[in-house]
């Protein structure tokens, strides 16, 4: 499919400003890859539960894969549960682990310890990417639906921070192993999502620069919600010449001219995203005021695959 930058990487982080469509894009990538026969898991972090909405999935699962569609699984990373797993793996005295886990004191501590929730989250994601069964990787693709930009970047940086902070010992070693994987361009690809608007695009460009400066593999950008273009330069000049008079005609012409103006702004934002990140953004169309569910995700996956997109006008089911 037309996601060359992401094609051969197992671990994909989907990052971007709040509300730009990270969850929708993660689900779209997952849908496209699962259709192509890959075994895919989408990891949700930081207590979001968007996948269950998108796939009308009733099951609330924590830290276990749940099937959303053929070949496509969801995995909701639970920080408490992951912390417990982590402790269990390192402190082999089970009663002590139980005691820690049941203690509210410990929970308070763990929730505020800088970087700890992020580290166990990233550790869980890393485990998914490294899991093997009978010598073969369990997952072909692990897609991480990250929290909004600042928190998303913090999540990625946490392994490096902790390995620096701890200096030595098992925590450091583990953090270092994770850091190596999330920075390795053969293993990991970061996909930055934007919408064709000023702030999301600026944020995407800044995030790409910050991540690259830190040695993270920014592999792709995705412009989500581009309005399918309906008018062209020659249309605009004709529309501009329609004389006033009939107010209903004037209103219709104004609506078309506004759409054309809007499309140019969107195009300018797309060019800016491309130039500012040095990528060729993948484009996903705006589907209009619909509730996004599986059939919409299939449409978006078609667009990713470059299949002739149905020219369904915006807003018409």
């Amino acid at each position, binding site marked *: 499919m037309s996601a060359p930058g992401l094609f051969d990487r197992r671990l994909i982080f989907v990052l971007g400003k709040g509300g730009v469509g990270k969850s929708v894009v993660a689900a779209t990538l997952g849908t496209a890859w699962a259709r192509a026969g890959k075994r895919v898991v989408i990891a949700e972090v*930081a207590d979001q539960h968007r996948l269950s909405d998108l796939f009308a999935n009733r099951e609330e699962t924590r830290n276990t894969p749940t099937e959303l569609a053929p070949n496509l699984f969801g995995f909701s990373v639970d920080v408490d549960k992951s912390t417990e797993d982590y402790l269990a793996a390192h*402190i082999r005295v089970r009663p002590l682990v139980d005691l820690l886990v049941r203690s509210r004191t410990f929970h308070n501590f763990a929730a505020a310890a800088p970087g700890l929730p992020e580290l166990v989250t990233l550790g869980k994601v890393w485990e998914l990417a490294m899991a093997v069964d009978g010598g073969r990787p369990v997952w072909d693709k692990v897609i991480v639906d990250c929290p909004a930009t600042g928190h998303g970047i913090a999540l990625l940086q946490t392994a490096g921070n902790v390995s620096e902070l701890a200096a030595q010992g098992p925590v450091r070693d583990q953090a270092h192993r994770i850091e190596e994987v999330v920075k390795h361009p053969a293993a990991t690809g970061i996909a930055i999502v934007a919408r064709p608007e000023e702030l999301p695009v600026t944020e995407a460009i800044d995030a790409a620069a910050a991540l690259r400066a830190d040695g993270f593999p920014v592999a792709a950008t995705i412009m989500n919600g581009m309005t399918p273009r309906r008018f062209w330069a020659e249309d605009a000049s004709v529309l501009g010449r*329609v004389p006033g008079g009939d107010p209903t005609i004037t209103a219709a012409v104004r609506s078309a001219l506004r759409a054309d103006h809007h499309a140019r702004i969107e195009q300018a934002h797309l060019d800016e995203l491309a130039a500012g990140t040095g990528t060729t953004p993948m484009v996903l169309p705006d589907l209009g005021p619909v509730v996004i569910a599986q059939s919409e995700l299939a449409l978006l996956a078609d667009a990713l695959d470059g299949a002739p997109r149905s020219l369904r006008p915006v807003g018409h089911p």
Partner: protein
Amino acid sequence: MSLSGLEGRRVIVCCGSGGVGKTTISAGIALALANRGARVAVVTIDPARRLAAALGLAELGDDPRQVPIGPTGGSGELWALQLDAKATFDRLVCRHAPTPEAAERILANRIYAHLSGAVAGSQEYMAVERLNELTDDPRFEVVVLDTPPAQNALDFLDAPTRITHFIEGKSLRMLLSPGAAAGNLGWRMLHAGSSTVFSILERVTGAQLLRDLSEFLGAFDGMYTGFSERAERVRTLLHSPRAAFVVVSSADDEPVREAVMLVERLTADGYPLGPAVMNRIRPRADLPPPPRHALVEALAGAGATHADDLADRTLAQLADDEARARRDHDACTRLARLLGDREPVQVPDFADEPVEIAGLEHVADALAR
């Protein structure tokens, strides 16, 4: 409403889901109040570059800057600043450290560097701490606080407690020296005074990290009370009728759901609500579409080579606009119903993003209507 619901408040907090326009609406509210004669400071978080430029925040630094605005009713002034969480945290430390040396020691501590620089938690905590500083500042009558994008839009209300607890280190001390945990029988019985937990934790974290951590907690010793007093002061202010929470939403499903959840949680926790704002609402058409033949004729007259085709696309556009406007309208109605028929204030979706003062004036007008 609209702004009448906000008159006389000392602090206005704008919250809502990611990307709905919290920063824009905060600036719009601040401008509208300044236009009515108040001296207002708005604390923005990550404003768009052009908005930052328009507010005079292009350079770094989190000092309030006065923004030149048009003539206002009386002595209105608009001031803007951009939250710098680390700088705010550093000031907080310097304010409460018993000696300059103690402050230095904390600022140089590696754990402190990570804590104060961490996005998660620190930004939320410092947004709230900034309220303390600004409400003490006699230059301002009103402070409008934009909130950081967080997974949970109310994280910033919990962050102060979470972080001051961590700094207090009670939980850690309890873990490390069970004897200190008075009343916690389970711990004492299991480890009566021993440092088993310490040595086991050390196995996991390495000695260095634990050493740094205890140094960090040691450095903060005695400062905890000052910190928690300040956190408590904001909590009291935010619960008082001098505060108002403005929940911002767009017409998308997710944000509306989040807005309703926010309102419920704020109400349950006893925070005073201001009006809800529905941002980026497109207006319904007030005219029916033109008859197709009339449109074709008009377009042909204007020189269209394929007037039929262009007319169809134009009519399709008109229908799409209307579908969106209807969806937006329905979302407003739904939100009003869910909020117990309190009409949300509507701000239109502007063709040009309101990232300059002129654009913000339109936002302010819509809010004041």
